[in-house]
Every structure is written in structure tokens, then in C-alpha cells.
């Protein structure tokens, strides 16, 4: 009973937080209260007011509008990164897990190598080769994310492969492809879902981190990390412009973590 209650609170909190983020995302796509790029010298570093509920930044841009667009930018990057990571990760994981053998050895040692390499360094390398910007960042982070997905999927496939029902469909003469697509991949759903949610969290943090370092989304386009980085100079004089993007990142991470937790506990 106690455990169930905890679970339910987690689920409700998770859904609420991600719900708020989702509404912000929609607002960011449809309409922001102000142009997030418009500058104004009168509004420089003004605090929160009824017109500008989160105040204005050092160029007099509305922080709330910038956060809405920033959430969109951050989620686009995180979403694309997870998509790349999980897609290629699933392919790699399934192939290596199902067939095993020498191919498995080779591919897994390659992913080991990528994993052993600090992912930030890998991203910096790719970005310095291809130039900065959002698309390069997606590519760089996506590549860095593949190995962790591949490992988890591989482990799960290994487990499923040795289950009795797989042996019996094999006896019925099902082809490898049929077994993979009809009997294995659908059973990866649950693992995949919680991996994706956790991966999503990591991707949000990675995007924020890279943009904070000036490698991701290019100014004047806002992203949560970029806004934090720009607000850093004002942290002592005008803490609010750093506070709000930071708060949103916390909400996002907390929301998805709780959701991932709750989902993995579901039957």
C-alpha cells in the first residue's frame, strides 16, 4: 500500500511537471508573448513585472518568451539526440545480441571504445571538425549516445533470445528476421521506454552543457543552456535571469526522471 502510494505520487508529479514543460513547448511553437529577440534599451535588466513575468535580460529581451523558445530548442536537440541514439542503438544492440559471435565482439569493442572516450571530448572533436551550430550538436551528441543504448538493448535481447518461446518458434522454422521483428523487438518496449526517458534527461543536460560552453545553439537564439551561460555575468547583480532558465532545467529533469521511474515500475 505504502509503496503504491509513493509510486502514484511519483507518477502524478512526473506527469504534472512534464505537462507544464509540454505546454511551454507548445507556446514556444505557437506564440510567445513578445518577440524573444527584440531588444530594448529601456527594459535592460528590469525585474519581474506584470508585463514581463520573468523580467528582461541584459538586452531588454523578455526572459519568459526566451525561455519558451529555449525550451523548444532544448527539446528539439534532446529529442533528436535520443532518436538517433535509440534508433541506431536498437539496431546495433539487436544484431549483436541476437547473432553474437565475432560480429558481436567487434561491434561491442567499438562501443566500448566510444564509451571509454569522454563524451564531451568526442562532441568537441566533432564540433571543431564540422563547425558549431545546432545540427552539428545533434549529430555529435547523437553519436555519443548510441553506445549506451546499444548496450542496454543488447543485454535485453540476450535475455529474451534464450527464453523457451523463442526456441519453440525456431523449431517451427521461423526466420531470424521474423523472430527479431515479431518476437523480440515488441518485447523491448518497456526497457526501451525507460531508457529513452533517462536518455532524454541526459540529452537535456548535455545540450545545456554544450550550449553553456558556447558549442551548441548560436546566439541570439536562446536555449536553456545558452541563457544560463549568458546570465552568468549577472548572477550577482541580477540573479533572476539566471534563476529562471535554471529552474526550468530542474523541472524538466525532475519531471522526466519521475516519469521514467514510474513507468519502469508499471507492469
Amino acid at each position, binding site marked *: 500500500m505504502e509503496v503504491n502510494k509513493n509510486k502514484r505520487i511519483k507518477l502524478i508529479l512526473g506527469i504534472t511537471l512534464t505537462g507544464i514543460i509540454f505546454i511551454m513547448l507548445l507556446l514556444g511553437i505557437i506564440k510567445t508573448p513578445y518577440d524573444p529577440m527584440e531588444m530594448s534599451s529601456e527594459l535592460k535588466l528590469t525585474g519581474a513585472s506584470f508585463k514581463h513575468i520573468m523580467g528582461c535580460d541584459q538586452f531588454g529581451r523578455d526572459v519568459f518568451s526566451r525561455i519558451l523558445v529555449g525550451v523548444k530548442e532544448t527539446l528539439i536537440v534532446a529529442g533528436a539526440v535520443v532518436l538517433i541514439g535509440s534508433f541506431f542503438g536498437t539496431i546495433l544492440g539487436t544484431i549483436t545480441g541476437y547473432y553474437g559471435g565475432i560480429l558481436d565482439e567487434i561491434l561491442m569493442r567499438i562501443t566500448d571504445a566510444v564509451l571509454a572516450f569522454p563524451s564531451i571530448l568526442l562532441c568537441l572533436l566533432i564540433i571543431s571538425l564540422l563547425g558549431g551550430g545546432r545540427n552539428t550538436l545533434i549529430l555529435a551528441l547523437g553519436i555519443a549516445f548510441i553506445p549506451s543504448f546499444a548496450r542496454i538493448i543488447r543485454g535485453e535481447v540476450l535475455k529474451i533470445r534464450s527464453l523457451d518461446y523463442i526456441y519453440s518458434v525456431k523449431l517451427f522454422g521461423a526466420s531470424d528476421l521474423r523472430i527479431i521483428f515479431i518476437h523480440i523487438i515488441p518485447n523491448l518496449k518497456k526497457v526501451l521506454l525507460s531508457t529513452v526517458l533517462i536518455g532524454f534527461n541526459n540529452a537535456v543536460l548535455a545540450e545545456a552543457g554544450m550550449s553553456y560552453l558556447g558549442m551548441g545553439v548560436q*546566439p541570439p537564439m536562446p536555449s536553456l543552456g545558452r541563457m544560463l551561460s549568458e546570465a552568468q555575468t549577472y548572477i550577482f547583480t541580477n540573479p533572476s535571469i539566471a534563476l529562471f532558465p535554471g529552474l526550468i532545467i530542474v523541472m524538466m529533469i525532475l519531471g522526466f526522471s519521475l516519469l521514467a521511474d514510474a513507468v519502469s515500475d508499471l507492469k
Partner: protein
Amino acid sequence: MNLFKKGLSLLLLSATLTVALCGCGGDKADDSSQITIGIPQDLEESLDPHYAVAAGTKEILFNIFEGLVKPDKNGDLNPAVADSYTISEDGLTYTFHLRKGVKFHDGSAVTAEDVLYCIEKNADTSAGDANISAFSNIKNYYADGENIVIELNVKDPDFLEYMTMAIIPAGNTDAATNPIGTGPYKYVSRTPQENIILEAFDDYYGEKANIKNVTLKIVADADSVVMNLLGGSVDLYARISSTQVAQLANSDFNILEGTMNLVQALYLNNNVEPFNDVRVRQALSYAVDPKEIIDLAFDGKGTEIGSSMFPAFGKYYIDETKDYYEVDLDKAKELLTEAGYPDGFSFAIKVPSNYQPHIDTAQVIVEQLKKINVDAKIELVEWDSWLSDVYAGRDFAATVVGVDASTMTARAMLERFTSDSSKNFVNFASDAYDAEFAAAISATDIDEQTEHYKECEWILTKESANVYLQDLAEFVALNKKYTGYEFYPIYVMDIAKLKLAE
């Protein structure tokens, strides 16, 4: 396992010890005085003063090297390695008398041979242009006892400025890694991307440096400058922004204000579309409002300029150029339509990522250009790639940086825009400009020369070679423990003048 644990604790112990030792060093600096100066980027790989390109390198090398003459804080030239000089009446023969007792940092005395070697190195045309192009005017140079005599082909009123050329020992072929000069400070060591160590030169002939040990600490992340200052790991940081100034209020730092003496502009590559069309460049000049940039990004501190010249140059500076393009969006759109871009166009502005003022400026420009439907995108690049791709490779459409003068001559600012100059990174090409510039450098009368230079500036303005913005205000944060910082009209930092406060 045990061994591992032992190793780990040893490592930890030694780490804490180093920290503790460092902590002591900072406080006990009285008898062997010390200062840590923050700089925004590492010096160039080569420390050869004759080939230094970046202003950030030159401002430091100023303390290590000296020429026959040396500029002071008013921009006047004073005798240095030479203790006196005479110029013949026709202006064609310069005679420098070598100062007695001037020593190089390695202890050897400066001889006429060293001076001749340096002139030869910079006048050498075997590998293309002379390193100092004004030296191609030298007809003959030789040593006459303790005198160095230089004869010119034609009169050049600016020639003395080039005698600030660093004097290095003859045959110092590894000047890039082993810089030896005659300045008040000598080079000790460097750790790439971390620091450069200098030490006061005891045998300096003139007024010796007040502070013995100087560490130049590279603070590549603009955001951590204030933390470094407040945390006490940096005592002096030149060129901080106005917001950083606000953060340093009520701290241990004095804030000094001057001007940076550089030309900040949206530099346009005149060779790429659409900036090869003068109307497009003019349209940008009509659309960009430097006043708004100064207000928005610099809290109103900065001097608007309109050509490649800044106010510290006095007689060469033309204040009226800044009013040539008043903001006029209709006119800008009209010009764009004439040029064939009625719906605007898009381009990328490459901005060095370690210079926050330039990034801020670019952000305001992007907004201003939106009003004439021009879609500018900012691309942050690292300083090293800026130097190699944008400056040397000229692979860019537009960039925001500041360009300074290496010597106090109009030529230093204006020569780079002649069509065949190797420093002409914006690919500006104008026959009228080349002719005016040629007339200026061959003029024998100072007033006549000034007129030609001014005409050059007007051409740059009218042709809108670049979108000229401002001479940035310079704020220097100096720990209250020190005094004596001096602003120069050229981009240098005179460390020798710094001293401990009483």
C-alpha cells in the same frame, strides 16, 4: 589494493600540499614583488616580435622588446636602444646613436651588428614583400662606429615610427621560442594555454620595472574573469566589460577607464556575394545604428566612429565620418532593391567566441538587420580558427572584431586596405584608394600627407568598406594593492610602470 590506496593517499597529500604552498606564495610577495595579469588568449605560438600578428601578443611583447625608439603614453617617440638620433634636412638620412651599456636579456651587449641584422630581416624581399613594407623605401643602411645610418629613397614623415621595430640579437634564429630583447622584462617560460612568466630585467638601462615577477594567466573563458578577480587569482585584467565593472563594485579593485584604441566594425568580405556590391554594404551601414549598440551592449560607454581611424590619432581622425550614414531604413531597403535584393538575403557573422563585447555587438546587429529583412546568423569560432580561417584564410562573409594600430601612424591603420596588402583581410579593392594611399606615403609635406590620409578615410566611409561602429571604452580592473597603470594610444600594456601601492 593496498598499494593502490597508498598511492592514492600520497597523491591526495601532494595535491593538498601544492595548494597550500601556492596559498603561501601569494601573501609573502613583499620582498620579491609579484603580480598576476589576466589575458584573454594565449600568445601566438611564435614569440618572434617581427612576425607577431595578434594585438594580444604585441601588447605583451612590448614589455620584452624595444626598438631604437619607443613610444610613451602620449604616443610620442623617445630614444630607447638609441640614445639620440638626427634627421637630415632633406629628410632622407636618419642617424641613430647607439646607447652605451644596453644589454640583451642574455647578458650580451647590443651592437650595431644586431641593429643591422634586424633591419635586414625586416627589409628582406627574397621571400616576397618586405616584412615591414615601409622598409622597401630604404636605399642604404650601414654602421658608422656607434652610429646607424639609414638612407631613404624618398622622404617618409612616418619613418621614425618604424624604428620601434624590436631589436633582437643578430643570429637569434630561434626567436620564436627563445625571445631575447632589451626591454624592462625578460621572458622566463610559458605553459601553452595556461600562463607566461616574465621577470624584471636587472640590467635594464632605463627606469627599471617595479614589480619583479609577472605571471600572465590565460583566462580564456570571458565569464570566469570576475570570479578570477574576486577570488584573488588575478590582480589585473584589462578590457573588462561594463557589466563586469558593475560586479566589481565594492571589491578590492580600482576600475580605471580609458579607450581601447581600436576600430570595432562589422568587417565585410568585399570579395564575396553580396558584399562585393557597394550598395549592399552601404545599405548595411544605413541599417546598423552604432549608438544603439553602445547603449544596449555597452551601457552607453564607447566612442562612435565612421572610418578606420580612432580619436587618439588626433590630426588624422575625422569626426564627421561617423555622421555620414545616419540610420535610414527606407534608404537601406532602396539600396538593397537596386542591388537586386528586394527581399533581403542571409549571411553569417563569424565572431571570436572569447570576446564577449564582440558577441554582444553581433547580437544587436542581427536584430538591427532584421528591420531591412537581412537575416544574419552568428557563428562563434575559437580565436585560433578566427586567426587561421577568417584573418589569414579570408574565408568569411562578415565578422565583428576590433582592428588596432601597431604603430602610431596613419599608415598602420590604412595600409591594410590597399588592394594588394597581405593584411587586407576584407579584400577591399579601390583604385582611388590605392592612388590616395600611394600619394600619402610619398608626400614630403606633413600637411599634404595628412590630407591624403584623410581622403583615404573618406573613401573607406563612402564605399562603406566595412560597417564602422565604435572605439570601445576600456575598463581596467586593478587590485588596490597596485597602482601605476597607464593607458597608451596604441594597444599595449606597460607592465613596467605598475608598482605596489603605498
